[in-house]
Structures are given as structure tokens and as C-alpha cells.
């Protein structure tokens, strides 16, 4: 029983660790920021889940298992938020290799909206302020 649990745990740990390595490879090899973010989300979700499952099997006691579950839940909740914030800024700053795009349905409109270019509606500048950038 314990031998079987150990085998399952080590399989999970090895797969998760391999995903961490491919994430590093992807970070180095992918051509632009948006592609590198794909490499980054992978260990954040699948890899962390697998490693946490493996660690929870190996560690005795429910207290540790609950805390590892909490780590996995935090990752699942926070990874999309930070990925979205970064990718949005990256697109606005044109960190996109356009020659590698097969199609772009978003178009240049994504970073030419003169009124609203922040992260949140609350960031939008007041219109009567006079600091409104001129749409070029």
C-alpha cells in the first residue's frame, strides 16, 4: 500500500518537475513576451498541482494536505489574474512579434484607444483634465 502510494507520489513529482524544466526551456526559447507567458503558466497550473499532490501523498497528516491544497487553490486563482495584467500591458507596449502571427483579429485598435488605456476603468484619466493624450 505504502509502496504503491510512493510510486504514485513520485510519478506526480517527476511529471511536475519535468514541467518546470520545460517552462524554463520555453522561457528561453520562445520568441516574444506573450509566448513566454504561455510557458510560464504551465508550471504554475499543471506542474504545481502535480507537485502538490505528490507532496500531499508523501507527507502524513491532514494539516499539511490542507495547506498544500490551499497553495494549489491560490495558484489557480491568481495565475490568470497576473497573466492577464502582464499580457495586456505587453500587448499595449507592442511586445508582439507580428511576423509570427497567423491572424490578428484584435488589430491595432487594442492600443490606439485614446481614452482608456490603463488596467482598470478607475485608471482612466479624467476627460476635462487636459492631460488627455492626443490620438495620433
Amino acid at each position, binding site marked *: 500500500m505504502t509502496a504503491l502510494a510512493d510510486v504514485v507520489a513520485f510519478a506526480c513529482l517527476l511529471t511536475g518537475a519535468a514541467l*518546470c*524544466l520545460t517552462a524554463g526551456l520555453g522561457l528561453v526559447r520562445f520568441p516574444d513576451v506573450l509566448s513566454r507567458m504561455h510557458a*510560464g503558466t504551465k508550471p504554475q497550473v499543471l506542474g504545481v498541482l502535480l507537485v502538490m499532490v505528490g507532496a500531499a501523498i508523501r507527507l502524513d497528516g491532514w494539516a499539511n494536505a490542507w495547506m498544500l491544497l490551499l497553495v494549489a487553490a491560490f495558484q489557480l486563482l491568481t495565475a490568470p489574474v497576473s497573466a492577464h*495584467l502582464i499580457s495586456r500591458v505587453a500587448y499595449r507596449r507592442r511586445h508582439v512579434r507580428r511576423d509570427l502571427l497567423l491572424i490578428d483579429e484584435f488589430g491595432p485598435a487594442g492600443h490606439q484607444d485614446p481614452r482608456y488605456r490603463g488596467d482598470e476603468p478607475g485608471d482612466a484619466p479624467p476627460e476635462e483634465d487636459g492631460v488627455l493624450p492626443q490620438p495620433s
Partner: protein
Amino acid sequence: MTVVGFALYALIGGGALLALVRLALGPSLLDRVVATDTLLVIISAGLAVYAALERSPTVVPVLVVVSLLAFVGSVSVARYIGGMLLRSRTGDGRDLGLPLAAEVREEQS
């Protein structure tokens, strides 16, 4: 058992090293943010692997902290750059001292 442990540490260490390479190479701030984010996640995976191999639960609370720190760090930097873009007149932060994106430089040259 030791072979598996060695393989695990090698895989995770390799991933962390490659993330460090990206952190050093850049070329842009956002690349470094992504690399730092990934590096912290890989570190927390490494801590979990350590806990699993040694069967010692002492590092488990550290995991919670590291996983939250990664989020707070990348979000605050992303929002900082977003705020700069907001004040910028050209729309990509050139006038406020942000360097031009490497991808655009390639297109122009």
C-alpha cells in the same frame, strides 16, 4: 530513492537556471517579470519536492507565502508599467523613459 531525488532536483534546478537566464537576458522589463514569476513558482515546487523527499512538513507554510508573493510581485510591476503607459503621450511609454520594445526595434531596423 536517491536516484529519483537526484533526478527531481536536477529537473527543478535546470528549470530555475533557465528562468534565471531569461531574467538576465531580458530584453524587456515584462520578460523579467514573467521570468521572476516563473522562477518563484519553480522555487515553490522545489520546496514541495524537498518536503516530499524528506517527509518534513516544516517548509509547507513557506510555500503559502512564496506562492502569494509571486502573485503580488508580478501584479504590482504590471500595474506600475500600466500606470506609466497611462500617463504617456505616445501610448507606449517612450517619452517617460521606457525603452522601445525589442520587437518594434527589430521591425524598424
